[in-house]
């Protein structure tokens, strides 16, 4: 067997030793994420692997379960970021293009993982270096070069040249290749020509100001009596007046202008701010600047007085002063001016739910804006015109890898309701216990993710191991693990710095719509189990925490784990529901269930025993809308902790 991602080079003696070391020391990056792998029952942490948080440090890419279409491109980019030699292990992944074919494929089971890793070690040891190793470029990473003006970002050309507006030399920049389609629009001729209004004004300025010096908008020290180009940067020289009225005027300051009554004078000039970055106005104009009075009369230009308000009282505006340079640019809440950068987090970011694409606009390290999007959102529930009940249940369960038991139970309950069937009291108790078991596993998985995100590695390891032990344990298995789980909860409650880390983070008020633990951690809220007679008979009482912050959510999840242990013990049996037999029934039914993340509602319509219509409301649909609120104006680390505290499942979000 050969390794697709081998490093180039002949297999010499020393390389053989290095290859053996690589086969031993596997650093794995997991797609879609370790949390999904654990929910599938794969114990990656216990497989003599090192799980790393960035593809740069990995030599093995593990793909667990079918790779959703929305993640394929990002997966290819991840692979391209890994240093060679690199390998792919696909565990029940199916088609993974545009990733190259997996070096080793195995079924997504514990045995499959074991044998797959053993095979992979052999492949790496034998083929880490090859003279004919191929290249791989992720389609999303292909770039092309385009040319743009530093002053006029709307000018974009395919070839080098000068800016038609200011004559500056265009500078190259790289852009994603898929931008080709929408690119044509940039070359619209009317974009490049100065607008009629501008021309008009330039003329007025000339009339008003008389024969003045020409100067460069970028280099005020360059002064010339005749129009021409700046010897430094090649921009057209502008008359002093025009320079100011032009969008970039804010850079060149007009040394002689005092701080006078900016508002009137500027109101007149403001119309030319239409140039995109024309928000100057920090400098007012002195009254005795001859000819300027004329501008005040231009009623047509009025209405922009607001621009001059930005001048800060008591601060003398000067050439290149920060007040002027940063005029009109977005400003942080603390009034400081910093570069804003847009940083993508996810869909494979360690410490965020796998499949979630969080784009943060960062102002320094403070979040100025955020956008959360699921790349694995659910598709239509009913595939095709109709589905058998069995297929429907399996499909819904497979769509929600993080809580498949709850959605399976929900689907069965809704179909039974539609068919008028009754599973019986014992089955109901068994199902309730199965859902509670999944709740324990899911909350433990959340604790593990939180531990990973916050660097609480003991918690990550311990909660992850317990999640794997609990997720398919029988009633005795749960009883055997109960002590360890309760000990973990006590340990979490007592961990130092925990309060400091989470208190007052991601506070959510009582009026914002929320579901599940997020809802109940703000002193009230709803729980679908409160209306379920089976659970009430088992002794269910809704857990509530005060505070509405990330700490309250952590504590509430711990409370719920403890409560679920009691409920399972009271139920006495665990039974994942079987698909109900609905041969030829027609009808409509709805069911509600409290999944680990909140309340889910499903309505199905049966025709002749086939599911023809289905509608689902999920908790993550509700909670994903909270991301913007909880991240706004937060420090980056706090913002990520805030998003994690919502425990979103991107799979539940409508695609």
């Amino acid at each position, binding site marked *: 067997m050969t390794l697709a991602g081998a490093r180039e080079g002949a297999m010499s003696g020393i*390389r053989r030793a290095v290859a053996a*070391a*690589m086969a031993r020391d596997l650093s794995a990056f997991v797609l879609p994420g370790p949390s999904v792998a654990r929910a599938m029952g794969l114990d990656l942490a216990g497989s003599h692997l*090192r799980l790393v948080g960035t593809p*740069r440090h990995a030599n093995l890419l593990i793909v667990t379960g079918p790779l959703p279409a929305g993640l394929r491109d990002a997966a290819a980019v991840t692979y391209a970021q890994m*240093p060679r030699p690199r390998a792919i292990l696909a565990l029940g992944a199916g088609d993974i293009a545009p990733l190259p074919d997996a070096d080793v494929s195995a079924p997504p089971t514990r045995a499959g993982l074991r044998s797959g890793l053993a095979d992979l070690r052999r492949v790496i040891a034998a083929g880490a270096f090859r003279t004919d190793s191929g290249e791989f470029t992720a389609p999303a990473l292909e770039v092309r070069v385009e040319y743009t003006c530093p002053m006029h970002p709307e000018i974009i050309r395919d070839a080098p040249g000068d800016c038609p507006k200011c004559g500056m030399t265009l500078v190259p920049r790289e852009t994603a290749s898929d931008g080709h389609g929408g690119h044509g629009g940039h070359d619209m001729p009317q974009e490049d020509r100065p607008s009629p209004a501008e021309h008009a004004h330039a003329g007025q300025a000339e009339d008003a100001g008389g024969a003045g010096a020409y100067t460069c908008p970028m280099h005020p020290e360059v002064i010339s009596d005749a129009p021409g180009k700046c010897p430094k940067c090649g921009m057209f020289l502008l008359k002093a007046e025009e320079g100011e009225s032009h969008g970039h005027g804010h850079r060149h300051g007009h040394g002689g202008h005092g701080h006078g009554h900016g508002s009137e004078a500027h109101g007149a000039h403001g119309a030319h701010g239409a140039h995109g970055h024309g928000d100057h106005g920090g400098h007012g104009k002195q009254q005795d600047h001859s000819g300027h009075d004329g501008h005040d009369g231009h009623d047509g230009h009025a209405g922009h007085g607001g621009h001059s308000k930005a001048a800060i009282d008591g601060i003398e505006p000067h050439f290149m002063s920060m007040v002027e340079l940063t005029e009109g640019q977005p400003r942080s809440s603390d009034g400081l001016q910093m570069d804003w950068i847009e940083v993508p987090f996810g869909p494979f970011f360690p410490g965020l739910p796998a499949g979630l694409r969080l784009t943060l606009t960062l102002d320094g390290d403070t979040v100025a804006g955020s956008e959360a999007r699921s790349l694995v959102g659910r598709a239509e529930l009913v595939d095709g015109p109709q589905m058998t009940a069995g297929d429907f249940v399996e499909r819904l369960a497979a769509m929600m890898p993080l809580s498949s038991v709850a959605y399976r139970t929900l689907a069965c309950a809704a179909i039974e309701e539609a068919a008028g069937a009754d599973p019986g009291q014992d089955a109901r108790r068994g199902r309730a216990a199965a859902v509670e078991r999944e709740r324990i596993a899911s909350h433990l998985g959340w604790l593990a993710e939180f531990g990973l995100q916050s*660097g609480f*590695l003991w918690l990550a390891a311990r909660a992850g191991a317990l999640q794997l032990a609990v997720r398919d344990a029988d009633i005795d298995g749960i009883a055997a693990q109960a002590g360890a789980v309760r000990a973990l909860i006590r340990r979490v409650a007592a961990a130092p710095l925990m309060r*400091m880390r989470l208190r007052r983070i991601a506070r959510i008020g009582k009026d914002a719509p929320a579901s599940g633990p997020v809802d109940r951690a703000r002193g009230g809220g709803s729980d679908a189990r409160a209306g379920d007679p089976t659970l009430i008979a088992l002794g269910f009482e809704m857990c509530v925490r005060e505070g509405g912050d990330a700490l309250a959510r952590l504590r509430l999840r711990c409370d719920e784990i403890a409560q679920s242990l009691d409920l399972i013990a009271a139920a006495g049996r665990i039974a994942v529901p079987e698909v109900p037999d609905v041969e030829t029934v027609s009808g409509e039914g709805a069911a509600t269930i409290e999944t680990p993340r909140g309340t889910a509602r499903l309505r199905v319509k049966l025709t002749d025993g086939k599911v023809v219509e289905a509608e689902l409301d999920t908790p993550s649909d509700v909670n994903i809308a909270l991301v913007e609120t909880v991240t706004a104006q937060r420090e980056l680390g706090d913002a990520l902790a805030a998003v994690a505290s919502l425990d979103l499942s991107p799979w539940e979000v409508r695609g």
Partner: protein
Amino acid sequence: MSILVVLLSLAAGAYALAVIERWAVHGHLSLTGPAWAALALLGRESLLARKSDRLFFELGPVLLLVAGLMAVAVIPLAPGLIITDLATGALFLNAALAYVLVALIMAGWGPNGAYAMIAGWRFLGQFIAYAMLIVMPITAVAMRAESLSTVEIVASQEQLWNVLYQPMGFILFVVAAMGLAWLPPLDLPDATGELAGGVEAEYTGVRLAVLRLARMVIILALAGATVTFYLGGWLGPWLPPWAWSAIKILAVAAAMLSVGRYMPRIREARYLALSWKLGISLALANIFVVGVIALVVPI
């Protein structure tokens, strides 16, 4: 000769630390693990990020290593076993470790990646938190020894180790040292769950190996400084002096590496607030108390 011995013990110490770190971070205790990992790293591609600042990118890890080695130069392992016994050793240690900040900002800026860049700047904030708390406890130590020489400082603890003489200074220094070495829970610049490796995120292959080695050296230097300043350096009964140094330094380093495993990472704002409001007040109080004791009870 002593230079060679110190460097060899440094290499051995760095390896031992790598074993401990693997256990602390990944939960595997393996004596050969770091050797395999290092060999595997050397065989991997060492990628250069696109549009990187090549100079900063290449120099960051090297400068970090140099800073660590310079700091090690003034740590005495036994009487006479020190690279250079400077009269201003304690000050020199502090000066050498100041380059850690420069190196990390360079390494963060160099690769032109958002995560690394934010991480580098985060460390600048962290510097403001730990810097005073490294210097001020050292001041109190030097006051007792009446010297800045690290050898003199160890000798001054013959009667009573500084950890008992000025326990407050000990705690402040260890916490600040963990901040300097960006160890969890103060690992803001390489926070895996927040910045996907941060400063380390874009380094691969040999460059990553250098970066990791440099960090081990810095941790060792700081553990060595803790032992020298507070735990009596090579002093101890029965065993030879070098053995005491080795045991103490590894124990301190192991403690610093593993304590963060049991708690979440601190918030940056909180860290700064605590360092300045609480830390510096305590450090001043420590200097005052040590001054009074030194005047009243000469031990």
